[in-house]
């Protein structure tokens, strides 16, 4: 059975239709890439799934239950966690408190002394062991991304939405990042990732969905989709197809 399913999902901002009749399914345990040129509606699609934006039309369901009519905090409680395109740390909190914020308000909250070991383990998982007491606003860009991932994982998600989590990393960091996401996949977390780094997409995703101008133009195994003429045209223009 599919974990996530979108049926005819549409989002309009005034006259602009950012997402137009989008339908797809994610099977539990899959890692799927959501690709497309800038402005094709990928981030909007993530925002609709996480409840950051309300849908204009269509239905989003998680494990068969509609989530497109409830707010982001209830969607989070159903097991959807995300990172943001531009890292959104909680700057006045420490690194550990950033993670605690997710532990404390998830469906099965962890709080107090019990939370400390959770925080240490989650930070260690993303390569931030021993950094809990550090102020979040003192972290480097890559470490902020790590912290944001630890925070998303602290919510204990079934479905993880990563919005260009690998963007802006240098080659060494990118390799570490890919290894990290691979380890999450092995834990059985379903991942939908918006990504422009094609090496990462090839390494991580078994399947890709491609959007252009708000609509889905391809959906299938990664190698096939990336060779698809329409996809290449959408990305690179008519001359390359």
């Amino acid at each position, binding site marked *: 059975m599919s974990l996530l399913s979108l049926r005819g999902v549409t989002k309009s901002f005034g006259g602009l239709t950012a997402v137009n009749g989008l339908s797809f399914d994610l099977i539990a345990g899959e890692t799927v890439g959501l690709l497309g040129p800038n402005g094709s509606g990928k981030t909007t699609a993530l925002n609709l799934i996480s409840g950051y934006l309300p849908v204009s039309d269509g239905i989003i369901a998680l494990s068969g239950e509609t989530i497109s009519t409830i707010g*982001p905090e209830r969607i*989070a409680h159903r097991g959807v966690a*995300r990172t943001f395109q531009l890292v*959104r740390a*909680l700057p006045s909190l420490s690194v550990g408190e950033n993670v605690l*914020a997710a532990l*404390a*308000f*998830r469906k099965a909250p962890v709080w107090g002394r019990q939370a400390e070991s959770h925080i240490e383990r989650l930070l260690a998982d993303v390569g931030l062991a021993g950094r809990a007491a550090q102020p979040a606003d003192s972290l480097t860009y890559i470490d902020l991304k790590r912290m944001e991932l630890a*925070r998303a994982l602290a919510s204990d998600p079934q479905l993880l939405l990563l919005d260009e989590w690998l963007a802006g990393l240098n080659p060494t960091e990118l390799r570490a990042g890919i290894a990290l996401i691979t380890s999450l996949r092995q834990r059985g977390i379903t991942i939908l990732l918006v990504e422009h780094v094609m090496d990462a997409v090839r390494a991580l995703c078994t399947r890709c969905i491609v959007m252009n101008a708000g609509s889905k133009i391809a959906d299938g195994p990664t190698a096939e989709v990336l060779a698809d003429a329409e996809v290449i045209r959408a990305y690179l223009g008519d001359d390359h197809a």
Partner: protein
Amino acid sequence: MMKLLAALVALAALAFVPAFAGPYPLGLGIGILGYGVLATAWAMFSGPTRYISLATVAFFGLGAYTVAVLADVLPYPLVLLVAALVGLVVALIVGLATLRLAGIYFVIFTFGLTELVRQLVTYYEVNVTRTLGRYVFLPIGPEHIYWQLLALLAATLAIAFWVSRSRIGLALRVIGDDPDVASHLGVRITRTKLTLFSISCVIMTLAGAIQAPRWTYIEPSIVFNPTTSFLVVIMALLGGPNRLFGPLLGAIPLFLLFEWLSANFPNHYSIILGLLFIAIVFVLPNGVLAAGDSLWSRLTRKAVRP
């Protein structure tokens, strides 16, 4: 633990002040406690969320008016209870209406709310009861007001301490930092804000109710004076709104300063107040305690350097 013990000892010592102090110092003590309560209660909500509320005096005045209206009808403890309920109901209504607003809109709304409440009370008094002011004759001396305010301050600090250590306190800080992230982490934003806003407003209402017998005569322009709201904001900002004792420590020197200013420069009082407000926001955006901390860490860091 040591801090708690020190706080309890200080509280016990402060309870003996009326035994030694004359009427004027006792009056100053009441003023400090009153503003200490208001500033601490204000910071409980506005510190972590950074929602600057100018509605303080609306609740303060409602408390005072409740006492003025009901003092002859109900026994005093019951009057306080009714005042707290009035504060709670108004806070819930206002909260549900406004807490979706952010930034400057919230500030303006809360300021407008104070005026609205004042005008409504004035309208009711002029047109229905056909008097503008009311007399409050209660056999409650200044020392009793002092003790009640001291107890309220202790309770307010205890609540603020509990909030800062609890999940709801963390929720408030997360909301203050980034409400979108908060909702994606599962924080119930409206419920959290409404709860803390209501607690804070009920305390403000009680502060007004307890001080009502002191004036003997009250009217809307006295108990709904918007300057009080601004003073509370300055006090909390001066001391540091995100520290337990910050607002109280800001209230002490500023209250004494305002007393002195209003006695000696009654005509220029507002100008000086405005300039002070500007200076505090520019020079000490996180309060004196935070400024002291950063100065201290700068000094000690220098000392370590070879």
